[in-house]
């Protein structure tokens, strides 16, 4: 279900943001391999975020934004430049 999937990705995004700062290491000054452990967490977490973002681009890109291509209705999303003409009113100003 597209809607459940969207909810899932929103939860993933919130989780990525929520743990970007390792709150559970608050006050910790443990050093691992010359750097504070919370800095290693940061490095690892950003790597994970990058991987998750990449997965998102492969599997769900367009979710919540695109309508008409992968959405419920069957209208094709190729109205790119014809839109203005069909609408009868210019969208933005002429560039």
């Amino acid at each position, binding site marked *: 279900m597209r809607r459940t999937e969207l909810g899932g990705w929103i939860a993933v995004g919130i989780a*990525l943001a929520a743990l970007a700062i390792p709150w559970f290491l*608050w006050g910790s*000054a443990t050093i691992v391999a010359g750097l504070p452990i919370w800095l290693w967490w*940061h490095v690892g977490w*950003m790597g994970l*975020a*990058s991987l998750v973002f990449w997965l998102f*681009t492969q599997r769900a890109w367009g979710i919540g934004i695109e309508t008409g291509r992968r959405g419920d209705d069957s209208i094709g999303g190729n109205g*790119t430049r014809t839109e203005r003409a069909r609408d009868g009113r210019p969208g933005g100003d002429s*560039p």
Partner: protein
Amino acid sequence: MNAVTLQLSIIVGYLLIALAVGLVAYRLTDRTAEDFYLASRTLGTVVLLFTTFATLLSAFTFFAGPNIAYAQGPEWVLVMGLMDGIIFAILWYVVGYKQWLLGRQFGYVTLGEMLGDRFGSPWLRGLVAGVSLLWLFPYVMLQQVGAGTALEALTEGAVPYAAGAGLITAFMILYVVIAGMRGIAWTDTLQGAFMLVMTWVAVLWVLAAVGGPGAATDALASNPDTSDFLSLGGDYYTVPWMLSTAITIGFGVAMFPQVNQRFFAAGSETVLKRSFALWPILCVLLFVPSFMLGAWAAGLEVAVPEGANVLPLVLAEYTPTWFAALVIAGAMAAMMSSSDSMLLSGSSYFTRDLFRPIAAFLGWTLSERGEDLIARTGVVIFATAAFVVSLFQPATLFEIGNAAFSGFAQLALPILLALYWRRITRAGITAGVVASQCFYVSSLFFAVVPGSYAGWSAGLVGMGLGLVVTVVVSLLTSPAAAERRAIYFDRLGAD
């Protein structure tokens, strides 16, 4: 050759390379405003990623950021990670991809244009442009002041501030007017890649000189002044402060004209996808070494006089003169290139969203060439005005410039609602923008409105206020006749 001559030669050399790149870009350019502002929406992954990155982070990454890490500890790295690696990356998709689709479909060049069209209101368009310029103009001025002052310090007063800042302004005007978005994006890319490599070489060089990261960190831990730097959190880095900063700046970045406009400039969906996934990695690669250098310098007892920057002093202590000069000149050039992008975007907001509607109202019609000429004239006016005003050292404008990120953040939530919530009305978004701006500006200037709420910043509280006002007023009003609600939702797709 002494250090000053070397640094100056490197800066001049850099400027000449930039100008050459600008000339090449000019030869490839169509004489239209869309090409001037957006490189005709053709930027590739590397160029888009680096131009956004270089535009955004240069001066802070090399000067202010390491200074804070030196004084307060390296936790800023985490704030940067949340702010740029996660929040801004998500907005890259949520705001950026949707704006890119809309821009391609309807030909938008600025944020105000996109909103004005949806809400059928030239007034809203002007309001968004006006608010953006209110924050952008002093921010550009601060960059000029920064570069002029740095040049004065570098030449030990031989080039006085007015002459230095004036020369830099003149060069920036020449460069932006010739190169446009394409040239700026190319030099940003060269510079971003160069500075990324340089930062790593610098950190490896310093660490090799002091005996590795273990030794540098031990020095930090065993120094009584800095022993608490390594534990996460502290008096300066409180939970509300870290969150307020990361959230306001993260959202503010997405609304900064030169960043927001880049959402329109991507060449394809693939470019946006790749940049999105690479963003957190790039943050780690750049911020961890530069901020750790600042923090380690505190443990190594590198003395930093009042008002000086820590990074040049660390490099001067542990690396050869030529290398330090290369990094400093690169960082200064980076400051200038940030201003280039801001200048270009600022002038596009001014000419398209303020000047053009007025011209249309007066019944003037403009050809494509005329439009392009006005775009380039706008750059000259914007940069000259910022320079002239900077000569008077206006305290009020300094304060506004320093608060620019939070100021832009106030725009983010009403605009997100406009992009995703069908029930929003023209009255709602207008009220939300006006209320949050008034609140935030008052918090800067009037004691009646406090700047901090139990540790949470006025910037964050203002964002919440803007959200509430937009929703409530939208629910209480009905859409105006001229609103075109459907255009943000119907038939939106990438192919």
